[in-house]
């Protein structure tokens, strides 16, 4: 009875069907509502932004992985999700080449050069969103060069208004959208900030599917709400605008760059919330939330060590 080519692997021999690819697919699904709202408000600009970011992210992975001697991993959809999230971080008026540079940096540098999915220190999408801003002088020649050639890509004339956060800066609610506007749909800021409800729906879906824990979003949102309430800075507006929900549900919860312990996740969320409020109180760069998450990302491993669960039976 030998020679039946029986498979011998260590236990367990039953495994949950869910693989990384399923989780990524679910994240993409969770992003559909907010993306559709963005497409509705910003029309072609939003669609082009999405196509550029996702396309550049996927292409970067296809090109970079073989250069690093790695097998392709397009099947796990990680690059698609990174590009997609990146697109949602940009405003519809962002120059197209900024988006492309962002996608290349996100996948090429933040993810693949760090060792690939699982080894990255920073959330790739936020890295791709923020680094081009920090390195703006490096890229300052690109705009003029492109506009001097025949190769142009008009990204103007969109229906976009001042971001709600910018309006709040003057500590005056006149002209600012109401919480109901922000909750349902309001075309201000980035693609991923157009509807709080759509983001919440996506976040709840991911929690329901057990891909993300409630702890990080809850810690973040509660901290921002309470601190801005104490500081008298329109807590409801603060929570519903400026990409806070996008970051709370989709960026800070990024598996690789967040702690894995329960308490660690709560602490991580609270710390990001504190940073967000600091950024917003002492100046409000549009990338405040992004910076906050990126600042906390490298602390994830350390927080894990500090919050190791108690061993069974340990006093």
């Amino acid at each position, binding site marked *: 009875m030998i020679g039946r080519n029986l498979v011998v692997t260590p*236990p367990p021999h039953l495994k949950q069907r869910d693989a990384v690819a399923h989780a990524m697919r679910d994240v993409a699904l969770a992003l559909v509502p907010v993306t559709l709202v963005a497409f509705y408000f910003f029309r072609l600009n939003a669609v082009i932004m999405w196509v550029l970011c996702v396309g550049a992210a996927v292409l970067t992975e296809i090109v970079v992985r073989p250069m690093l001697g790695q097998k392709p991993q397009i099947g796990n959809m990680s690059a698609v999700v990174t590009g997609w999230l990146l697109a949602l971080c940009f405003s519809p008026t962002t120059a197209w080449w900024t988006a492309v540079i962002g996608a290349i940096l996100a996948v090429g540098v933040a993810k693949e050069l760090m060792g690939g999915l699982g080894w990255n220190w920073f959330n790739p999408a936020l890295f791709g969103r923020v680094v081009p801003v920090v390195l703006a002088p490096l890229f300052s020649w690109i705009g003029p060069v492109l506009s001097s050639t025949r190769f142009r890509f008009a990204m103007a004339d969109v229906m976009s208004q001042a971001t709600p956060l910018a309006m709040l800066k003057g500590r005056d609610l006149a002209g600012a959208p109401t919480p109901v506007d922000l909750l349902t749909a309001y075309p201000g800021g980035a693609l991923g900030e157009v509807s709080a409800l759509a983001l919440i729906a996506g976040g709840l879906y991911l929690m329901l599917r057990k891909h993300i824990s409630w702890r990080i979003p809850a810690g973040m949102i509660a901290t921002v709400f309470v601190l801005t309430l104490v500081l008298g800075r329109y807590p409801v507006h603060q929570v519903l605008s400026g990409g806070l929900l996008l970051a709370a549900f989709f960026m800070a919860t990024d598996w690789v760059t967040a702690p894995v312990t329960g308490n660690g996740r709560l602490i991580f969320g609270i710390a990001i919330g504190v940073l967000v409020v600091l950024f917003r109180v002492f100046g409000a760069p549009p990338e405040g939330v992004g910076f906050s998450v990126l600042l906390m990302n490298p602390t994830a491993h350390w927080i*894990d060590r500090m919050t190791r669960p108690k061993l069974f039976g340990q006093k």
Partner: protein
Amino acid sequence: MSVKTFTRGGVHPPEHKEPTAGSPIREIPPAPEMVVPLSQHTGAPCEATVAVGDRVMAGQKIGDSEAFISAPVHSPVSGTVKAIEMRRVFTGAMVRCVVIAPDEHQEQAAQTERRDWRALAPDEIRSIVRQAGIVGLGGAAFPASVKIAPPKDKPIDSVIINGCECEPFLTCDQALMLLRPDDLIEATRLLIKVVGARRGYIGIELNKPDAIELLASKLKEDPEICVVRCEVKYPEGAEKQLIKAVLDREVPPGKLPSEVGALVHNVGTALAILDAVAQGTTLTRRVVTVTGAVARPGNLEVRVGTPVSHLIEQCGGFAGQPGKVILGGPMTGWAIEDLGVPVQKGTSGVVVLTREYMDAHPTLACVRCGKCVEVCPMGLMPNMIGIYAERGRYDDAEKWNAMDCFECGACAYVCPSKRPLVDCVRKSKQAINEKHRRQREAKS
């Protein structure tokens, strides 16, 4: 009635118990060649007490050891010893085995007459259990005589019979509970007496309502023993988790259940102890669930030493193309390559999985999803152990408590990167044990 469970971690794998649940126990004849390993238990291996060419009786001792943690081995059949040689067993290792060709008479070795265990002193009972070669039948195969001899300074107040059978596919304990409920209660009383406990509990998962109902009706208003309904959650039947569920006590890391006054025995083990004490039998048979992709799944009463191929033949052969044959349950059992390996005392099942169950996804890097941390019933961080073990950094794996893992496999079950976490733990434990051994040698 309240439902009990352990509080931390746990998973819910598909149960797959339907093919054999409630099916009666069917005895199968011996195979033309019986292969009895001389080491079927945790502890020191036995030396053969017979020689090639000897005629042996069924139930006769054929291997024994002087060591405290060991259990003698008995012949499952009457016949002739054909060889004493190294044979492959389910772990893939080569183990010295007594190979016996059964004869047609199937003579039993002389048995003692029925005994009343109530008239026996605890030490007499321990000696009988030792001589009968009884080990834990749930899978770990720890010598039962050692377990029922707890240290004097650790009094035991509670005996727990483990009827959880939380491994998917397996139903042999359920079948035994349904077939011999009175004997199981009797066995519980015996164990209570041996260790001087006050209470007995029979823990059963809710997915065996027939067994719960039957035993509960017999134990209505019993002053000593009660049935504990346990949530269907893996690994409910792990020793420490069951103690937590039933008594709400946590066995400290690195300690035994006696530390918290508990003794846990599996249903099959308890019955084997009763049989040995009351009827003088030795452990040469056990119930094995043969299920999955076989033509006629069922619970078989099998002589220890029967090759797995014989069990599969007795169940009508494979149904479809087998991908994996597992000895034990699918969460903790061993995949075997050679169907000639024998059933041992600790073999609770033969589960045949088709290729559909094989891993379709490649192993990826840890993506730090934290699911393994959530489901670990021991409060470990399997992700860290896995990452360090993969790089051969076993000192670090030790710092992340690899030694406290009992290899339930919940972490690897949920891992979306399909990482071989149990394998990582095993390699870590091996390296850590080796290191400690070298350190001890260096000191002495």
